[in-house]
C-alpha cells in the first residue's frame, strides 16, 4: 500500500537503449501520471556502456527511484514462431536453449538465454529491467495494419532486419537477419534449389554479381531504370486493387530521401537481399503456411532511402509502404505497455 502511494508520488524514468551496428541510441522519457514530463535522446558512438552513456543515463535515473531500463534485443539467434502451444513450438525451432514468450496467445517470440545473460552482464552497472524482441516492436508499431491485413512487415535497424508475415494478426512467418551475414545468406540463396512452383523471378532480377559497392561503379545503377519489366509494373491491374491508399497518403507526407551515397545504396541493396531471402524462405519452407504476399510494410529505424522501396516494388512486385520509426520511442511504448502506464 505504502509502495503504491510512493510510486504514485514519484516520476517514472524510462530509459530505452537500442544498440546498433556501431553506435547506441539512448532515448529517455520522464513520465508522471499526467503524461510525459521530459524526454531526451542521444546517440553514442559505442556499442558498450561507456562513461558518457553511463553519465547521461545516470543523470536521469538519479531523479527517481522508479526508473526502468529497457533494451531492444539484438541477438542474432532470435525469432518468432506462429504458435503458442508447447507441443507445436518444437516443430518450428528447438527452444531448449532459448527464452520464449507468447504474444496474445497467437504467436511466440524467442531468443537465446545466453544472449539475455550477456546483455544483463554488459549493462550490469545500470541494470536492465526489460528486454524486448524486435518482433514485438514490429507487431506493436504496425498494430493498425496487422489486425486486418496479410502483409510482410519488416523492421529495419542499423545492422539488422526483422521480417514477419502476419495475416489478420496471426503470425505466419518470422525471421531475424543480420546484415553482416549477408554474403553467407546470399550464397545460401543462390545455391538453394528454390521451389520451381513459386515463380519469384529472382534470377531475372538484379544480377548480384554485377553490383559493386565501390564508388567508381555507381554509374552502373542507371541500369535499374532501363528494366522494361519494372517500368510496366503499374499496368498490372490486379496488384493495384490491394494497394493501401491510406498508407500511401501518409507516406507522401514523409517522402524518403534519395540515395546520396554509395554506402546507403549498398546497405539498401543488402536489406533488399535479406528481405528477398526471407520471402524465399517463407514460400519455400513447408513448415509455414504459405500465402501470397502483395504488401510490404517497412518500419524504418535506420534511415533507408527510396532505393529499397524501388527494389522491392520493381523486383518483387510488392506494394511497399515505409514508415519512419523512432526505435527509442517505440521501445519506450513497449516499456509503458509492459508496466501498464
Amino acid at each position: 500500500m505504502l509502495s503504491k502511494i510512493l510510486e504514485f508520488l514519484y516520476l517514472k524514468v524510462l530509459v530505452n537503449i537500442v544498440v546498433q551496428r556501431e553506435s547506441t541510441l539512448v532515448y529517455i522519457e520522464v513520465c508522471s501520471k499526467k503524461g510525459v514530463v521530459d524526454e531526451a535522446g542521444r546517440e553514442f558512438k559505442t556499442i558498450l556502456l561507456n562513461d558518457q552513456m553511463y553519465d547521461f543515463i545516470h543523470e536521469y535515473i538519479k531523479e527517481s527511484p522508479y526508473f526502468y531500463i529497457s533494451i531492444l534485443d539484438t541477438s542474432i539467434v532470435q525469432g518468432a514462431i506462429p504458435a503458442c502451444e508447447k507441443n507445436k513450438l518444437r516443430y518450428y525451432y528447438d527452444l531448449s536453449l532459448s527464452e520464449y514468450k507468447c504474444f496474445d496467445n497467437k504467436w511466440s517470440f524467442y531468443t537465446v538465454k545466453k544472449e539475455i545473460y550477456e546483455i544483463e552482464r554488459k549493462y550490469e552497472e545500470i541494470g536492465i529491467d526489460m528486454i524486448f524482441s524486435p518482433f514485438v516492436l514490429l507487431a506493436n508499431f504496425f498494430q493498425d495494419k496487422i489486425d486486418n491485413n496479410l502483409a510482410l512487415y519488416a523492421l529495419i535497424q542499423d545492422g539488422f532486419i526483422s521480417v514477419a508475415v502476419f495475416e489478420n494478426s496471426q503470425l505466419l512467418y518470422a525471421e531475424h537477419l543480420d546484415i553482416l551475414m549477408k554474403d553467407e545468406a546470399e550464397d545460401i540463396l543462390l545455391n538453394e534449389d528454390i521451389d520451381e512452383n513459386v515463380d519469384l523471378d529472382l534470377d531475372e532480377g538484379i544480377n548480384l554479381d554485377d553490383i559493386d559497392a565501390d564508388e567508381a561503379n555507381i554509374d552502373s545503377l542507371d541500369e535499374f531504370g532501363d528494366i522494361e519489366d519494372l517500368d510496366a509494373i503499374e499496368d498490372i491491374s490486379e496488384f493495384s486493387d490491394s494497394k493501401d491508399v491510406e498508407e500511401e497518403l501518409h507516406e507522401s507526407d514523409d517522402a524518403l530521401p534519395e540515395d546520396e551515397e554509395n554506402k546507403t545504396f549498398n546497405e539498401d541493396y543488402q536489406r533488399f537481399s535479406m528481405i528477398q531471402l526471407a520471402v524465399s524462405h517463407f514460400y519455400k519452407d513447408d513448415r509455414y503456411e504459405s500465402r501470397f504476399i502483395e504488401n510490404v510494410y517497412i518500419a524504418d529505424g535506420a534511415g533507408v532511402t527510396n532505393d529499397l522501396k524501388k527494389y522491392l516494388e520493381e523486383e518483387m512486385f510488392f506494394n511497399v509502404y515505409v514508415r519512419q520509426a523512432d526505435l527509442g520511442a517505440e521501445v519506450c511504448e513497449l516499456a509503458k505497455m509492459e508496466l501498464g502506464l
Partner: protein
Amino acid sequence: MKYSYIKPRKKTPITPELQIIFTFFAMTLIMLFLTYAFLLYKDYTFKKERQTTIEQKKELKANIKDMQKQISFIQKQKALAEKVFTQNMVLKDSIANLFDLVPQRITLSHAKLLKNGLILYGITPNKDVYNFMLQAPLRSIFHKTYSSFYPAKNGWLMFVSKNYMDEAQARELDSEN
C-alpha cells in the same frame, strides 16, 4: 511480464542513502524515546524518593520533637537532680556541721531534721556540759530552743532538745538552696 523476456527489477524509493537517513533518524528517535523513558523512570524514582524523604523527614521531626521533649525532661530531671544533690550536699554539710557542734562528752542517740527545726535526743553527763557546750551554739543558729532532761540509769541525764527557726528565715534558706 507480457512482452519482455525478463521481469523488471522491484523498485523502491528507499535507496541506500535513504536507508542510512532512515536508520539515523530511527536511531535518534529510539535514543530520544529511551532518554525520555529513562527520564520518566528517574522522575518516578525521584518522586518516590522524595515522598520517602518527606515521610522520613516527618518521622525525624516527630522524633526530634520527642527527643526535645525527652531532653527538656532530662534537663528538668538534671536540674532537679542537681537541686537534690545540692540540697543533699547542704544537708550533708548541715549534718556535718551539726555533728561538729556536738561536743565529745555528749552523745546523741537520735536526731530529727525538720523543715524549720531540729530535734536532738542524747545523753549528757550534766546540764552544764549541755548548756555550755551544745545549747549555746544551737541558740546561735535557731531562734527558739527548748530543752528537757530526765535522768538516765547511770546517773547521767538524757535530754531532748527542740530547736526551731522563724518561718521567713526558713523560706529564705530554702530559696538559697
